[in-house]
C-alpha cells in the first residue's frame, strides 16, 4: 500500500517536472486566421519541420495571451512551444507558446533564426533574461492599481511574494472590502500587461463589522497563514490616504514595499 502511494507520488512528481520543462521547437506554416476568444489568442499551423522535442502532430494550434512583437504574424515561422498538448486528436496538437507574448514564441523563419533558436537551451528559452524582465516592483505597482480598479476602496492590502512564471510575474494580494477579505491573483507579462486576473470565487473571511481595523486584519493574516511557510507570507502595504488615482498613485508608488520574506508587519 505504502509502495503504491510512493509510486504515485513519484509519477505525479515526474509529470510536474516534464510538464514545465517540455520545450518543443518546430517550423510551421500558418493556416487560417488568428482568432481571439475570452481566454486566449489562437493561431493554427501545419508542422513542416521539427527542430527539438517530441512532436507527433501534423498540425498544431498555439495559444497565447498577447501579440506585441509580430504585428503581422508571418506564414512561415519558428514556433517555440511548451507541452503538454490539450487536444485528444492524434493528428492535431494544442499547445501553449513558451511565452504569453507571441514575440517570444512565434519568430519569422530564416535559416539564421532557426540555427540561433536551436542553439539555445530549454532553460534559456523558458524565460526572459533578467535584463529583459519587468522589475518586480513595477509589477506590484500594476497589481495595486488593479486592486483599486476591481475592489474600488480596498483596505489593509497585503502582497504575497512575487513568483516568476514564464516571461511574466505571478502575483497575489489580500485586502478588505465591506468587512470581507478579498483576494486577487494576476499574471503580468514582462511587457507590463495584465494577462490574467482571478478574484477569489469563494469567500475567505467575514469580519463581524464592515469597519475592520489594521490590527484585526493583521491578526487574521497571521492566523490564516499559520500553516504556511513564513517565506510565503504576504507583506502589508502602507495604504495611501485616498483611492488610487492619478498623481496620488504616482506619489504612492515610491512607498510600495517590495514583498520580502519577512512576513507580515509586526
Amino acid at each position: 500500500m505504502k509502495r503504491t502511494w510512493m509510486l504515485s507520488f513519484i509519477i505525479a512528481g515526474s509529470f510536474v517536472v516534464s510538464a514545465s520543462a517540455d520545450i518543443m521547437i518546430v517550423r510551421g506554416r500558418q493556416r487560417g486566421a488568428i482568432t481571439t476568444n475570452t481566454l486566449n489568442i489562437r493561431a493554427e499551423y501545419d508542422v513542416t519541420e521539427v527542430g527539438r522535442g517530441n512532436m507527433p502532430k501534423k498540425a498544431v494550434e498555439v495559444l497565447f495571451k498577447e501579440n506585441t512583437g509580430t504585428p503581422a504574424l508571418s506564414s512561415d515561422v519558428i514556433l517555440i512551444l511548451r507541452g503538454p498538448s490539450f487536444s485528444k486528436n492524434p493528428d492535431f496538437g494544442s499547445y501553449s507558446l513558451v511565452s504569453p507574448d507571441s514575440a517570444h514564441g512565434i519568430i519569422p523563419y530564416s535559416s539564421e533564426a532557426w540555427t540561433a533558436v536551436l542553439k539555445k537551451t530549454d532553460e534559456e528559452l523558458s524565460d526572459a533574461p533578467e535584463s529583459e524582465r519587468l522589475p518586480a516592483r513595477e509589477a506590484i505597482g500594476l497589481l495595486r492599481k488593479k486592486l483599486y480598479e476591481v475592489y474600488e476602496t480596498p483596505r489593509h492590502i497585503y502582497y504575497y511574494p512575487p513568483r516568476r512564471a514564464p516571461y511574466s510575474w505571478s502575483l497575489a494580494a489580500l485586502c478588505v472590502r465591506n468587512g470581507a477579505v478579498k483576494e486577487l491573483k494576476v499574471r503580468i507579462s514582462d511587457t507590463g500587461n495584465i494577462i490574467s486576473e482571478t478574484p477569489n470565487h469563494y469567500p475567505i473571511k467575514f469580519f463581524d463589522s464592515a469597519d475592520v481595523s489594521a490590527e484585526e486584519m493583521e491578526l487574521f493574516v497571521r492566523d490564516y497563514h499559520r500553516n504556511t511557510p513564513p517565506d510565503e507570507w504576504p507583506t502589508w502595504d502602507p495604504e495611501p490616504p485616498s483611492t488610487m488615482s492619478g498623481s496620488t498613485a504616482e506619489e504612492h508608488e515610491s512607498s510600495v514595499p517590495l514583498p520580502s520574506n519577512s512576513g507580515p508587519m509586526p
Partner: protein
Amino acid sequence: MNWNRRVWTWTVVLMIGIAIPAYATDDCEPCEEPEDPTLVSQGSDPCRPKAEGAEVENEPCKECDGAGGIQNKEDGASCKVNGKDGVCCDGVCYEVPGEGEDPCDWASSNQGKFSQAIQDEVWGDTNCFGYVVCINGDTTECVIREHIEGQNSDWTEEMINCVCVHELNHINAGANCPPCGYGVGTFPDAETKKQGECEAYKAQWECLDDIEPETELTRSAKNKYFEYMLNDLNCPVMPDPFN
C-alpha cells in the same frame, strides 16, 4: 354603625385578598408562579418554581429548569419564529428551510438574515461563484450559476457545469461555520485553501476534458486552467492530459 364597620372590614379584607396575589404575581420570576395565599400567610415564599420544562413566554427556545430559573431548550428542538418553523440553537429560535426545501434557494431568498458583508460579498459580488451556507452549523454547498454564466457568456452549458463541479469540489475541503444562526463557510487557513483550489481546478479540468466533442473553446479553457494551476497556484499535482 355596625353595618359600616362590617363593610369596612370586608373592603379591607377584599383589597388585601386582591393585592397579595397581584403583588405576588408581579414579583414572581418567569419560571415561578404565585404560591397559595394560605401558605403565604403561613410563612411560605410568595412564589414557587414552575415545573421543569414549562414554557417561558415569548422565549420559544427557553424553558424552566424546575428550580425557578431559565434554561435553554436542547439544540435542535423545534420552535416557531414569526409563525414559521424554526430550530433552537443556544437558546435562540432560528427559522430554517422547510421540509424538502433546498437550503441554497432558501438562503438566496432570505439574504436579509445574513450579515451585510455576506450579502454584499456573496450574492452581490458577481465574482463569487459558490459558497457554503451554514444554518445552525449545518452546511450545504451552493453554486451561484447566474454569476458563473455572467462571467463566461460564451461558454456552453457543459462548460458551466464544470465550474459548478469546481465549486462543489473544493467546498468539500472543509468550511469554518458559526455553530448557530446564519453564516457562510470559509476556508480554515491559506494552505487548506490552496489545496482545495488545486483539487477543485483539477476536477474542473477533468470535467472539461470529458466534454465530447472537444472544441476550440474547451481546449482553450483546459489550456487556461492548466497554466493557472502550474504557474499561479503552483499545484503539486497536475491533471494528466494523456489519460
